[in-house]
Every structure is written in C-alpha cells, then in structure tokens.
C-alpha cells in the first residue's frame, strides 16, 4: 500500500468525493482523505475549496492527522482568512497541551499563517511558549518571533518579544541559544538600524560556549553572528579565533566555511609577526582543500570562496596547487573555477607544473574550457616573468595544432604578452601571420591586426595583410574596424611612402561611410592629426605604451574586503556585494573588515592598505572586466602615464568620447585641483524632506535651470544620457550630463520617479576618480518626488576631491541614496 495512489484520482467529481470522505465518521477514512488532499496540494492543484472540511478535522487527538491538517492550513490560510479564524481556538488550546511536541507544533504552525487577525491571537500563547519549561518549545518559539516580525514588525516590538528573545541568548540550552541568535540575526538583517545584536565580550563568551554544544545548523548561525562582531583588540580576536578553530574539522562544509569566514575576518586584526598568525594560516589550508573532495555543487561554492581567499591571502594555499588540477570528468563549472584559482596561485616555484597541466587542458574536448586554458597560459606568462618564454613556446605548439579556436585564443593572448614584454618575442610573428586566414572571431582578428600594426616595420607585407582586411571593412565588428583604422595609421606613420593610398582609403571608409560615432570620431582625429602635424601624430600614435598590469581581473581591494566578510554566502558566489543583487525593501548593511587595532600598533585601515599589496598595485587593480574595446582604445592612444596626468587625460578623453570632450576643456580651468590630498567623503547627508516647502519650488527650480541653460554660450553640452535605468534602481531613473557655466562644472541631473511610492531624502556621493571630481554642494531635491514626477537638478561640482586613476580614465562612479535604497552607477 503506497501513497502513489493519492495521485491517481483525477476524476471530475474529485472535490465532492473528498468532501464526503472528509466528513466521514470513520477516522481512518478521514485520514486517507486528508492525505489525498495533501497529495493534490504538493503537485500544485488547488484544493482550497475544501478548507472548512479540512479544518473540521483539526480537533483530533491523532497526531498524524493534526500534522496533516496543519500542513494544509499553512498553505491555504492566506486565501481564506475568515475561515482560518475558525482554527484559532484549536491553536490556542493546543498551545496549552501537556505534550511539548503539540505545544511546539501549534506555535510553529501559527507563525506560518500569515493572516493579521490570527497573529493577534498568537501573541499570548507565544509569550507563554517563550518561557516554557521545555527547551524544545522555547526554541520553536524563538523562531516564531522571527516569523511574526516578518508579518508584523510593530506588533513584535510593542509586545516586547525582542527583549525576551535577547534573554534567550543566555538560555541554558545551546539549541535555544542558537535559534535565538538565528532569529535575532534575521530580524536585524531586515532592520539594519536596530541595535539588536549588540554583542559584548560576555555574550560572545556565551555564544562560544554554546557553539561547542549545539547542532551543526546552530553552529552556522552562531558563527555567522560572531563574524559580525568586532573584537576590541587583537588579544580578544586571537582568543575567539582559538575557540573557533576546532570548527574547521567539522564534517558539515557550511560550518567549515562559516568558521573560515570568522577566522579570515579576525585575522585582519592580528599582527603578522605573531606566531599565532602563522599557525592560523597553516590551519586554514587543510579544511579548504577537504571541501574540494565533496559533491560537485559544494565544490563549486567552495571554489568561488577560495578564489576570494586566495586573492586576499595567497599564502594560505600556496603549497596546495595540485588539488586544483582538473579532472576530466569534473563538471564544467568546477573546471573553470579551478583554472582560475590555478592562475592566481601560479608562481615561479610551481610554474612548470602549471604549464604542463594547462597544455594538457588545451587539448581537451570542451571548447569553453580549452579557450580558458589557452588564456590562462597567457596570464601565466604575464604574471611570472621567468616563465614567459616557456609560455610563448607552449602557445606556439598550440598554434601548430591548427585547431581553429585554439589558434584564435592563442593569438589574443600573445598580443597581451607583446604588451607586457615588448620587443622580446617578435620572432613568432611569422608563425602568427600564417594563420591569418583562419581567424573568424572579432577579438582574434582585432588582436592580429594590432600585432601587424604595432610591428609593421618588421613585417614585410604588412600593407598587403592590412589591405586584405580592408576589403570587407563594413562587415567587420566595431572592434575590428577601430583596430584596423589604428593599425593602418600606424603603418602609414612607419612607412609613409608606400601606404598613402591605404590610409586615405581607411580614413574615408571610417569617416564617410560609417554610421558608428566612435569610429567616425577616431577617424577624424587621426585625419586632423595627420594633416596638421604629422610629427605630433607620430608622438601620439606611436607613443610608448605603458606595460599592462600583472593581473587585470583582480577584485578591487575594498570590494574584496567586503566580500571576505561575506564568505560562504551568495555574495561570495557572485563576487558582488549583497547590495548589488539582494531584493526587497531590506536595507543591506555594508560590512567591512575590522581595522587592526593591536595594542602596540597604530590603527591601520584595511581600505587604504590591503595587507600584502604594495600601494602602487592598487591603481592597476581597478576591475576592467573585459572592456576590451576601451582597453584597445587606450592601448593605441594612451601616451605614457608617467607624463603629466592632465595632458594624458586630455588626449584620451578626446579620443574616447564626446562627453569627455566637453570635460577636458573644463579641466583646463582648474588644474590645481588635481592631486589635492586627502579627501573626506561627505557623509551621505540626508537632505531633510522639506515637506512645508511650497510646491512651486520645484517649478522655480526648473526656471532657474532654463535660464541657466540660456546663458550657456559656446561650450558644448552633450544630451542627457540615461545613467541609471529605473529597472536597476527600484523605480528611480537618473539621466544627466555635464555642463560648464562660468567656469564651474556641474552635473545636470534629471530624476524621474517611476515607482509607486514617494521618494525623499536624496543624497549623492562620488567615488574617487581620475579628476578629483566631487559634489560641491549636497544634492538638493526640495520636495518629495512623487510617482511619475520628474525633477531637474544642477549639481555644482568641484575638482577638489581626491584623485585615483580609474579605468577607463574618464569613468565616474556615483552613488545616489534615497529613502528606498542606495544605488550605484557609473558614467563616462
């Protein structure tokens, strides 16, 4: 007799039949009927019509039947709130039952019924259960407080449940403590402002004691909670670490990873000279490696986290390279992650092994994986200088295989190697040229064209090669077109006599026959440069290029520090802070690593000096995730960065886009602003919602603006572009542009509320940027922005902010805050 029979009845009169059975006198028949109802429910059938009949079965002393009815109630109470009231009495009665199992069950189920009327009745029984003599009931009640808070936060606060919950942290039973912590954390997450989990050394001590005794899930909750605590000095951090380390040997990988999180975070506070620091480092490696022998899904999550850990503290796993070697039957998502980590761990000591492995991978079947492996060889060459020669020869071997996608990938990475080690491996160019015809991907074609242009003087038939590309100019992708344009100009500057015709041809193709503004602009710039001052053109186009940085895909240090605080969570899987993807009205608390406050040492903020990274590296480490177009552009035009930054930026800006064109002339006015030291970011000061302000103020604002625009003469104002689409910002759309009025730069913004609620409390803040731009006044939005309303604001800017080279140079990252959330966008 199995349950599958419950699925089989799909006749028309089914509901009627069930109804009859539910009202049957026979207990056995009733139970069977409820089971059938539940079975229908699990497959998504609507059986809500049976609500009263099922509820009638609730008063029973048969526990199984009771459980089933409760299951049903949880699913359908919301759609039948009036009926659900019928059940309240039974619930209240069950909460007094002598059997703790039933008391807990009743309180648990009541919390799951999201009907306001019911929650009112829930308070009294819940209060009793929170003080129940049986720990099982107490721990269930603790969770119930969190449920209730989710339904009606005000009610929970009014009833003083939060205080009771806090008291439970000192409960004698570790499971109750764990659940209380879990409930409090959940509540605190939705109300970041409330100071629910104000941990102090005493409560920490209690948590650590409970940690040893509670179940694995409880351990996870407690560890996550510990991770949010900031110890007062290094001694406290060390003692917490000592008590957390045993968790690294737990069989549950989630416990292990949570423990790793706590340790990684608190390590920040320990001095590196400490013996204990070294011991801790050694202890971290084995559990991380063990995670890799688990199921592939766990491996994947572990690998994503290891990726972060390796970036933060490469010393942890530097001897464990081999565990990241790929097995051919690993799922593809595991393979790709392993590869990534292998490159991060590559060093002079292990490069030979790594290269041998990578070469092996490059002959595998999976195309994506092979591509990444080839790319990885290039990255090794760039990262470990001593291995460059070996890498190049490996790549050449791979090109000999003539497998189309391998060749293309290899050419792309060889281009990068040329950029890192100019004038060293040009002997391979001949081999590359042989494969010219097989290239069909834009990236590979662009890379090849760049190589031909860059080394035009060493390739005898460079003009023929480039000419052959020119035939299908309009069918090429933008990337290739831009590259071809630049390469031909380079060629012309190097061999002016033979290639005049070619350069004419490409310039006219780019400027006259193309609709692409980027291409046209670049074409015009070259044209003018060449026609006005060929010497200057040579200086610009053939300028010595800056060497590319070692690793381009490192996560930005501040983000990395934030992500370290989120080890083990979704954020660590996506490598994005939770604010970037978590939905819903919940505010997200930004976490940061604790500053090192060793008793003997001065305070050192991790943001400004990430451990292990020399300060110079920070500049390069700005994420440039695959913006190859921008990269190629810079690659051609960027004069040495060591030159005066102002000139550099001016040239680049001009080349890159029109918007910047306006800006760079603006910049000329206030060069002294650049390089201004230490800039204290203005706190996102909430502009008080000026409710009393006459509605006309918005209008007059508009008038101001128009008159302002009227006085603008001569300088170019780019049309407003949408910087922040409403979809990304919960209904707030921002478009804007930069203007200059009487020597001051301002950012003209147009804020549109496309959501259904009123927006207030606007504030704005800029990230450090290349030009030291910063708002000169707070963002003034005088009246609350009601739905569908649009407001125009002109925000005066100054260039007195602190300067940090961004990539691309003219990008500006902006954060806008309102009463709903904080949004980020970047502009050019």
């Amino acid at each position, binding site marked *: *007799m*199995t*349950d*599958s029979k*419950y699925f089989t009845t799909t006749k028309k009169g089914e509901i009627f039949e069930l109804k009859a059975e539910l009202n049957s006198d026979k207990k056995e028949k009733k139970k069977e009927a409820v089971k059938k109802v*539940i079975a229908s429910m*699990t*497959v998504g059938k609507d059986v809500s019509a049976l609500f009263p009949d099922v509820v009638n079965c609730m008063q029973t002393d*048969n*526990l*199984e*039947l009771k459980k*089933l009815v409760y299951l049903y109630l*949880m*699913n359908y109470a919301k759609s039948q709130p009036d009926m659900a009231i019928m059940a309240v009495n039974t619930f209240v009665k069950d909460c007094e039952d002598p*059997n*703790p*199992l039933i008391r807990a069950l009743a309180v*648990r189920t009541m*919390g*799951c019924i999201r009907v306001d009327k019911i929650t009112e009745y829930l308070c009294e029984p819940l209060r009793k259960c929170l003080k129940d003599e049986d720990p*099982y009931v107490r721990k269930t009640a603790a969770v*119930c407080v969190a*449920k209730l808070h989710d339904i009606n936060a005000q009610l929970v606060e009014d009833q003083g449940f939060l205080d009771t919950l806090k008291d439970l942290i000192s409960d004698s039973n570790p*499971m109750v403590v764990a*659940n209380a912590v879990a409930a409090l954390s959940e509540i605190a997450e939705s109300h970041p402002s409330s100071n629910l989990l104000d941990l102090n050394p005493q409560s920490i001590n209690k948590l650590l004691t409970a940690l040893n005794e509670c*179940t*694995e*899930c409880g351990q*996870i*909750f407690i560890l996550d909670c510990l991770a949010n605590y900031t110890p007062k000095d290094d001694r406290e951090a060390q003692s917490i670490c000592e008590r957390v380390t045993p968790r690294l*040997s*737990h*069989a549950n990988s*989630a416990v292990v990873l949570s423990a790793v999180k706590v340790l990684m975070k608190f390590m920040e506070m320990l001095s590196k000279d400490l013996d204990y620091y070294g011991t801790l480092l050694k202890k971290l490696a084995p559990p991380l490696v*063990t995670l890799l*022998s688990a*199921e*592939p*899904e*766990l491996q*994947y*999550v572990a690998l994503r986290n290891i990726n972060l850990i390796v970036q933060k503290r490469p010393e942890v796993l530097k001897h464990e390279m081999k*565990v990241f*070697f790929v*097995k*051919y*039957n690993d799922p*593809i*998502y595991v393979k790709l992650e392993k590869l990534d980590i292998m490159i991060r761990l590559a060093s002079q000591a292990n490069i030979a092994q790594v290269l*041998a492995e990578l070469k092996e991978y490059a002959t595998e*079947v999976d195309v994506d994986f092979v591509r990444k492996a080839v790319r990885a060889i290039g990255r090794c060459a760039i990262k470990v200088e001593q291995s460059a020669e070996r890498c190049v020869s490996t790549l050449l071997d791979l090109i000999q295989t003539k497998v189309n996608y391998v060749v293309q990938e290899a050419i792309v990475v060889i281009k990068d190697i040329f950029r890192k080690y100019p004038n060293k491996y040009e002997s391979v160019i001949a081999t590359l040229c042989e494969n010219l015809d097989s290239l069909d991907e834009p990236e590979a074609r662009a890379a090849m064209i760049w190589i031909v242009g860059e080394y035009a003087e060493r390739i005898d038939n460079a003009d023929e090669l480039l000419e052959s590309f020119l035939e299908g100019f309009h069918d090429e992708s933008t990337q290739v077109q831009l590259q071809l344009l630049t390469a031909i100009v380079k060629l012309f500057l190097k061999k002016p006599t033979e290639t005049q015709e070619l350069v004419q041809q490409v310039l006219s193709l780019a400027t006259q026959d193309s609709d692409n503004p980027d291409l046209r602009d670049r074409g015009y710039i070259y044209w003018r440069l060449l026609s006005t001052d060929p010497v200057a053109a040579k200086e610009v186009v053939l300028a010595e290029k800056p060497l590319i940085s070692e690793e381009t895909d490192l996560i930005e240090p501040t983000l990395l520090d934030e992500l370290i605080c989120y080890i*083990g*969570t*979704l*954020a660590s899987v*996506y490598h994005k802070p939770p604010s970037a*993807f*978590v*939905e819903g009205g919940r505010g997200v608390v930004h976490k940061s690593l604790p500053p090192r406050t060793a008793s003997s040492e001065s305070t050192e903020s991790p943001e400004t000096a990430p451990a292990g990274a020399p300060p110079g590296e920070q500049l390069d480490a700005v994420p440039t995730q695959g913006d190859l177009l921008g990269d190629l552009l810079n690659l051609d035009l960027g004069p040495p960065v060591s030159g005066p930054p102002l000139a550099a930026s001016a040239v680049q800006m001009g080349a890159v886009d029109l918007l910047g064109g306006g800006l760079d002339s603006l910049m000329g006015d206030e060069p002294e602003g650049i390089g201004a030291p230490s800039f204290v970011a203005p706190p996102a000061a909430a502009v008080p919602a000026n409710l009393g302000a006459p509605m006309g103020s918005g209008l007059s604002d508009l008038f101001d603006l128009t008159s302002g625009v009227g006085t603008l003469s001569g300088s170019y104002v780019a049309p407003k572009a949408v910087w922040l689409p409403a979809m990304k910002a919960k209904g707030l759309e921002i478009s804007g542009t930069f203007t200059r009025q009487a020597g001051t730069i301002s950012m003209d913004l147009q804020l549109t509320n496309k959501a259904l609620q009123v927006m207030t409390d606007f504030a704005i803040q800029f990230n450090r940027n290349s030009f030291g731009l910063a708002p000169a006044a707070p963002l003034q939005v005088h009246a609350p922005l009601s739905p569908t309303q649009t407001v125009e604001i002109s925000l005066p800017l100054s260039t007195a902010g602190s300067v940090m080279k961004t990539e691309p140079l003219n990008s500006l990252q902006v954060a806008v805050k309102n009463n709903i959330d904080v949004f980020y966008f970047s502009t050019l």
Partner: protein
Amino acid sequence: MSEKHWKSVVSQSVCDYFFEAQEKAADVENVPPVISTPHHYLISIYRDKLFFVSVIQTEVPPLFVIEFLHRVADTFQDYFGECSEAAIKDNVVIVYELLEEMLDNGFPLATESNILKELIKPPTILRSVVNSITGSSNVGDTLPTGQLSNIPWRRAGVKYTNNEAYFDVVEEIDAIIDKSGSTVFAEIQGVIDACIKLSGMPDLSLSFMNPRLLDDVSFHPCIRFKRWESERVLSFIPPDGNFRLISYRVSSQNLVAIPVYVKHSISFKENSSCGRFDITIGPKQNMGKTIEGITVTVHMPKVVLNMNLTPTQGSYTFDPVTKVLTWDVGKITPQKLPSLKGLVNLQSGAPKPEENPSLNIQFKIQQLAISGLKVNRLDMYGEKYKPFKGVKYVTKAGKFQVRT
C-alpha cells in the same frame, strides 16, 4: 515535481529558469548549482537522477542550502531504501511530514536521522499492515529524547541483545597519472564508517597505530575534539546505527602508493579511417594483496565509429552512441597481465582526433588501507557488557585517471 513552501508561497514558474538552464547544459551534471533569476535564487543539487531545487529570496549561505538538500536526499534514502521518483511518490505524505520536521521558516530543525526516526517512523511492510488494522499512525507522539540533550545524535534507552561495534576503513585513491606513467597528482580520501549497535550510553575511544597520518580530518559532531588534539585518540559517544565517524585526506605525494600501472598505446593514423588501441594493466605496490574489480572506462573521441578489440581477460563493451568503452577486467594475476588490443574504426574523411582519451580506472583491494592507517584498539567505558568489535579495511580507486 513536488513542492513545499516554508516562508511564503512562490509560484511554480520560477522553476522555468531552472529548466532553461538544464536544457542549456549539455549534460545533466553540468547544470550550474546556483542560478539567479530576477527575484529569486535557485540552488540545486543532482542526486540519483533527481534534481533537488531550493528557491531562496534572501542572502543565505549556499553551502548551507546545498548541505541541507543533500541531507534531505540522505534522509529519503534512509527512509525509503532508495531516493527515486517512485519512492518519493509512493511516500509523499511521509516526505511532506519529514520536510516539515526538518525545516521551520527556513531554519533547519531536526536533521539527524536518529531524531527524525523517533518523530516519524520509517515505513515498513509490517508497520503499514499493523497501522491499517489498529488505526495507529507512524507519527511518534512523544518528544524525541535526544533532541535537546547535549548529545542530540543519540537517543536514550537503546537496547540490543547482541552488542556490536564495527568499523569500515575505506580509502579511495584520487590520482592523475600522465602519459609517461608518472604521478601528476595523487591523494587518498579516507573515511571510517561505523556501524554501532550498543545498548545504553557507551563511551568509546578508538586509537590508531599511526595517528600522525591523520592531519586533515573532519569529524562527526560526536567526537571530542580536545581529546584528539591532545592525545590523538578518537573519543566519542556514538550515534545509534550507521554513521560516518571521520573522513580524512592524506595527500603528501610520497605516502600515496599507486597500486596499478597501465601501459597504453592509442594512435590514430592521419588520413585513414582506423587507429590502434592497446592497453595493458599490471600491479604495482599492492602490498601483496590481490587487486580485484578492475574496470576501465574510456570516453573515445567523437569520430570513433566502432572498436574491434580482443581482451585477454574479462569482457568489453563499446557504446557507439555515447562513445564509451568499458572493459570489465576482474582481478589481476601477476603471471598473465590482462590486456585489450585491437583496431578503432573512425568516421572516414573526418580529421584525426586531436586529443587522446583519458582512461578512468576502478579497482578494489580488500584488507588493505593504502595509506597504512591501522586501528590499534577500541575501548568502551560507561557500560558493563562486552561488545563484539571488528575493523575492516578496503582500498578503492576514486577518481583515478590515466592520461594517454
């Protein structure tokens, strides 16, 4: 498909994202474990030909979810003997009751199978017959005793007439051997599984001859970590029944003996529709024990149409659709090494395959823990009776790959 909601009801349509991802992945095993959709995140595991998908809305540790899903699958396995669609359908009510006990509002409640079994008794034929006659149910109505004690994994009042404690030391060798036969990577993944049927509250301690081998271990929660740190002795009050006591990893290269070697020559001729295939397996460092249960699996390149081979021992099959060659060898007798050779038919006109296939090898060695780990003695305190004790060793190939 079966669904269960905890916090709020989520429409079934979110699964469409999952199905989409599933279609995109060529192989069911390649479905990414974490998928993001506009409003939710889908975390899935693939076990026994079933996908377990959980839909989450807020930031939670994904490992926690994955562990939980695996625990759910383990529990089903434990309850129904198999974790299959049919088993779940047959026991849908129990499945539902179990899930309800395991999770509350997103917080795991009881995941130890010992406790669950007290709350909801596993189905047996006898019980279902008894239930249908007496009208009683399989839901326990008393609070499980162990749940709140400091040893939640053990229930009180366990009684056996025969008191037994058995340990299985199982070691798996994960290795990658390169073309020339040298070891690229090798490690041993070991576990000690216990089957403990002891009455009362026994307190066991298990000691090893060479505990130094174990430097990277994960323990069952029952093990007292302090004792291990100070004395290198496993001291614990065991759960009742079958459980995994510890798992460990031995990785230092020189400690990992590789018990078999493979001689291979696989070649495809340029511009011809055939190739040669020849592999021989022999024993190496097997500590005098017989290597048995050998199977060789090879994923041949796509252009291979068929294979014409002769084994000196065992039998082979080649599936022309999946291109998988399986050679069931049996055991190795050192006098006559098993080999498999013959011709490979390729698709005519297709270019010769770039890569040579890797060989996947399975084997088993009884009565041997390849790392050399040996149990010294097992002592029991707290109870008066004398239990039967036993330790079994076995070594198996884990992910054992030979590149050619």
